[in-house]
């Protein structure tokens, strides 16, 4: 069996009386593309923050890249990449400066940073933009760059929080080309999205409703279980049951 890189057991987070994440248990394998779906307010972001070592769980267990989320959050941070739609790159730094900055943060040597910068700028075709401020790039390019930067240190896992929000269909596909390539290299992809066609690109998908994982299977398995033609329908059947309002 494949190596397990994320393992949770009854992982829970409470804020006062409110149970944001309610005893979630699941495993993610090395090199897997794992889609983490749920309605707004279902608890996805809270769960993801715990797995990234940014928020200490209330109860339960979890290891990420072999490190314990309670005891070793700093080790986790060194072994993962993270990208969100809201924040990922420094707009007032150039493309090249952003790559160098993140390379430095993730502890690459100067030589490695230099190599990586050249490699990334080549790969993304950003030669003319390398010395321009990131704020001048179109959204789709920014997203591709920030994904590349999030895996600049070849982490075991990369967490992607709605990376393609507001990105056009063509650019979203180019972004997924990068994701497939990363997964092919053995990087585990943990991704949230509201574009449910993208759920089909995942090896397995979980759907959260009111803090709980209500379903977890391959896209084909989910469609079969819920007698649905698309993941859209599956999601709709499950999320409609939510009692919690989107907050």
């Amino acid at each position, binding site marked *: 069996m494949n190596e397990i890189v994320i393992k949770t057991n009854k992982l829970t987070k409470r804020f006062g009386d409110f149970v944001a994440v309610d005893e979630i248990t699941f495993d993610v394998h090395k090199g897997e593309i794992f889609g983490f779906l749920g*309605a707004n307010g279902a608890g996805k972001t809270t769960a993801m923050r715990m797995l990234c070592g940014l928020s200490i769980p209330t109860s339960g267990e979890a290891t990420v890249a072999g490190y314990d989320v309670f005891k070793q959050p700093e080790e986790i941070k060194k072994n993962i990449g993270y990208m969100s739609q809201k924040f990922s790159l420094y707009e007032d730094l150039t493309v090249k400066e952003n790559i160098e900055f993140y390379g430095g943060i993730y502890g690459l040597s100067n030589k490695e940073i230099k190599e990586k910068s050249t490699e990334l700028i080549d790969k993304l075709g950003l030669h003319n933009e390398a010395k321009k401020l990131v704020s001048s790039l179109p959204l789709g390019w920014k997203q591709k760059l920030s994904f590349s930067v999030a895996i600049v240190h070849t982490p075991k896992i990369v967490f992607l929080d709605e990376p393609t*929000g507001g990105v056009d269909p063509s650019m979203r596909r180019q972004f997924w080309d990068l994701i497939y390539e990363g997964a092919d290299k053995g990087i585990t992809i943990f991704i949230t999205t509201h574009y449910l*066609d993208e759920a089909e690109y995942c090896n397995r998908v979980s759907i959260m409703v009111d803090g709980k994982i209500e379903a977890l299977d391959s896209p084909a398995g989910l469609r079969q279980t819920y007698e649905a033609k698309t993941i859209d329908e599956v999601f709709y059947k499950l999320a409609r049951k939510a009692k919690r309002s989107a907050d």
Partner: protein
Amino acid sequence: MDAITVNNVTKTYNKKTVLAVDNISFSVGKGEIFGLIGPDGAGKSTIFRMLTTLLLPDSGTATVGGLDIVKDFKAIRGIVGYMPGRFSLYQDLTVEENLTFFATVFNTSIEENYDLIKDIYVQIEPFKDRRAGKLSGGMKQKLALCCALIHKPEVLFLDEPTTGVDVVSRKEFWDMLKRLKAQGITILVSTSYMDEATLCDRIGLILNGKMLSIASPEDTINAYPEKLYAVKANSIYHLLLDLRAYEGTINCYTFGEYLHISITSNEAEVRKYLEDKGHENIEIKAITPTVEDCFIRLLKHQDERNSNKDK
């Protein structure tokens, strides 16, 4: 009379170095839902800002509700509702305070037009004492729509209202738009979700500041010139790489559980090629394109034209 008319409008930024909107013309009938579909940076938001009188065009003319966007800007502001792409309500005011504020600015009250917003407002009413900045994405969007509607506008401008919103809330949101349409409100909306494009009466595909086509979703689909197939096999990623390398491929991209491919050869030849490559469980079927396929095709052609120019 058309609710919106746009005639040869052009807008540049940065001392004319950046062409945001390039000689665009279109019109929107009263009570119509018109979708502006285009990638980031296409010029959609600029169009919204000009029509809501927040920006002046460099050239061309436009009217909203029969009023000129330059001469009659004050009158236009009274008859339009605008939901900008970025959340722009007062974060430090509560839900109710925001709504009261917008009602007061337009010389009306929440009570006066409560019918119009009732369906939406009941969903956020339990949170009416919460500050707007503390609301979730779906709730912010509902509040913003209420604020844009509180003065009973004739024309509603919605700039990417559902970005970052889950599929259930998106469906509710579009149900609301249909009800508003039924009341005669004209809606200009932009979106990056192609399933929403299908819900518009007509859509305009926009790219690099130019309007490439205007038609109903059905006509947009019927105009797709090539045969399109859906293909799947055991390893989708390797299937994608192999099909892109295939000489008969015009375009190939992921589409949910399938790949979509347009080809110059035929189905049998593609199947043979894939079998020779060692693919298993190959499924190939002819399909009707969606608006998303049409859009991807337009973008690809545009890219090719641009790269030919570079050479």
